[in-house]
């Protein structure tokens, strides 16, 4: 396919983009949320919930295979007509803005709490938004490479989180399966939210140069994300116990406060130093996807005009992220954003796929 604005990516980069869109600040608070529901079986819930992104991946891949070179926006307008198709794109962009404003607020709150207690939240947020705009504006290939690079960094820093496991108590994980089907099922629904990020494939699909490798790449990405999630939940359960976990807003970070390594001393600051870049990845990946969809919606030249919707989206994220009065409100909003993932990640590709079968002729013409 034609390389638009350095916008083709390899399937390997796609793996890192998906992982980058999924694994972020949520790693730090997810163990608390899920163990409150599924108790010691939270890791089972998150393991089973990996089926959610697999379904999403399957649907997007089926859809993409039918219209491989058509971007998300064009596909939407072709299948649903101009008006309804545009509405669907706008909902997608709205979802990205809403979701990313929550992620960015979380991130800024953590930065303020741990690193910059006296710096106003708005300033921290502004710095992140600038970073997101700057990177996203570089195009898909740069984003792909950045995700590639940061993945290895996240892997290295994730190893730090394994150190405290030595202080854990295995009895906290037992008895396995005691939450029962009901508990695990409730945990499953919530855990499904945490795989949000796979839906970026709706936009990125047309940018991947080897389409036949996308499904495999997606599966690898989901496996990596699942491994991260299961590991962090098991470690947190081992170290804090279920009751102890509920006391910490970000238990993933507290993990690093309980070990002391000579010379390094305060591991959480070292971890956060690297994590600042890593944590903004979901916003970079998603904002690029939303901006691309926006330019496609308005049929603008992506190379020339990508920056404008990007700034618009970034400003919206900045304003929205500042609206919640406190972090507890953000946690509540996060649940709604989770429902949004089910809409965009599952319902959207399913609807698109159904419509592609209904409009078989159009699909064949464009294939």
């Amino acid at each position, binding site marked *: 396919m034609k390389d638009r604005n350095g916008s083709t990516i390899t399937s390997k980069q796609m793996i890192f983009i998906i992982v980058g869109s999924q694994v972020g600040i949520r790693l730090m608070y997810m163990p608390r949320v899920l163990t409150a529901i599924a108790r010691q079986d939270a890791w089972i819930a998150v393991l089973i919930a990996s089926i959610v992104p697999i379904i999403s991946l399957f649907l997007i891949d089926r859809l993409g295979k039918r219209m491989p070179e058509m971007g998300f926006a064009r596909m939407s307008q072709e299948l649903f007509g101009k008006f309804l198709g545009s509405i669907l794109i706008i909902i997608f962009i709205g979802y990205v803005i809403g979701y990313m404003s929550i992620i960015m607020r979380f991130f800024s709150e953590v930065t303020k709490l741990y690193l*910059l207690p006296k710096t106003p939240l708005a*300033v921290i947020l502004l*710095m992140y938004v600038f970073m997101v705009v*700057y990177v996203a504006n570089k195009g898909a290939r740069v984003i792909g490479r950045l995700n590639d690079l940061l993945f290895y960094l996240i892997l290295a820093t994730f190893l730090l989180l394994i150190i405290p496991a030595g202080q854990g*108590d295995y009895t906290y994980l037992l*008895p396995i399966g005691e939450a029962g089907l009901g508990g695990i099922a409730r945990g499953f629904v919530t855990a499904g939210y945490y795989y949000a990020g796979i839906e970026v494939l709706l936009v990125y699909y047309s940018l991947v140069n080897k389409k036949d490798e996308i499904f495999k790449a997606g599966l690898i990405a989901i496996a990596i994300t699942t491994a991260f999630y299961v590991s962090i939940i098991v470690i947190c359960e081992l170290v804090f*116990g279920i009751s102890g976990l509920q006391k910490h807003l970000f238990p993933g970070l507290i993990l690093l406060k*309980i070990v002391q390594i000579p010379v390094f001393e305060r591991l959480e600051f070292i971890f956060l130093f690297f994590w600042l870049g890593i944590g903004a990845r979901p916003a970079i990946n998603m904002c690029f996807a939303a901006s691309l969809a926006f330019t496609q919606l308005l049929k603008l030249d992506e190379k020339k005009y990508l920056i404008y919707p990007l700034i618009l989206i970034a400003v919206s994220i900045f304003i929205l992220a500042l609206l919640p009065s406190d972090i507890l409100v953000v946690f509540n909003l996060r649940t709604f954003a989770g429902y949004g993932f089910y809409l965009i990640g599952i319902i959207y590709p399913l609807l698109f796929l159904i419509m592609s079968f209904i409009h078989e002729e159009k699909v064949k013409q464009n294939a």
Partner: protein
Amino acid sequence: MPKRILLALIMVMQTITLSGCWDYRDINTVAFPQLGAYDLHEEGETSMNSLSQDIQLIDLTVVIPNIAENVESKFKIDKTTGILIGNARGQKPYQLPGGYTPGVASAIIVSQDLAATGINKLNEALTRGALNPHTLNYAISETRAENILHVPVKDFPSMGVYMRMLLRSADKRAFIATTTLHQFEADQNPGKNPIMPLVTIINDKVMFSGTAILKKDKMIGRADLDETQYLLMLRGVKSTGSLPFVLNNDDNTSEYGSIVVVNKREVKVERNGDKFVFNINIMLEGEVIERSDNILFTEDKELIHDIENQITSDVTDRSKRFVKKMQEQYKVDCIDISKYALAKWRKELEPRIDEEFIENVIINVNVTTKINNIGEEN
């Protein structure tokens, strides 16, 4: 062009909003306490006297090293009073120049009368903010905690350094209880209870005097240094220490000496209806350090087994006595075995595990001793 404008805008904004604008602090003007002592407030004038009489005020005393050059004293001791620790910290600016950052403190000493009222409320100021590491070591003082800070230290730069070295990893040096802020919190999970080292002042020297037994965050009893050995073995705290032995032959002492052991523990729990039986297996491994007699091990092949059997017998006897004391006097699971019952029947037991559970279970103790090394001498 728009990209260049954007880049310029980003650079300008980043320059004017650098974190240093708000979070900059000159390290030379900040006081970094090394050690904190928490006490119930001693009667006296404070600005807090207008508060309700029901609330007992807290005294916070800290050791702060003097980092400025050419000063007479290496450290200063500063005491303030507040409704809780954060509030007492808030009084520091009235009597200390510069900032105050407790982020590098490495130990906290709580007086035992304050510990009896509960420690969680005191930890709030340490855990709610993100400044403090959860590796802070804890100790409970049999005297007023602030007295410990005033004990003269000659061989160490300050009492802060002395206490850090005394408390950190003490369980790797002898059968001494150690607790960090994280461990203290984790040990308040259902079925668990923390223990803390007890310290006291004897002859102008701060030293361990036993172990504080806590029911969740409240101190309810103490074990002396001797009992602490068996408490740690029963609790499964991997530790090391010297154990004496005395071999008797026809009612006469034939030999005595000591071995150094490391300990491990295994626990199995069985259930018959509402009757729970815990089988604790303590495994000791060690080496002979010294003996009073000169019979050679190569001459008396049974001697090493006699020493092992004597140690086994002594530890079994003392452990059983401690278990009895725990069930009858403390009435809390300070040996950390309830978790094995929770691991099997969590949903059913969790609501009642912390009330009248440990008193009504059967606890069997089995000890095995293995001497691996007799040293260089025969």
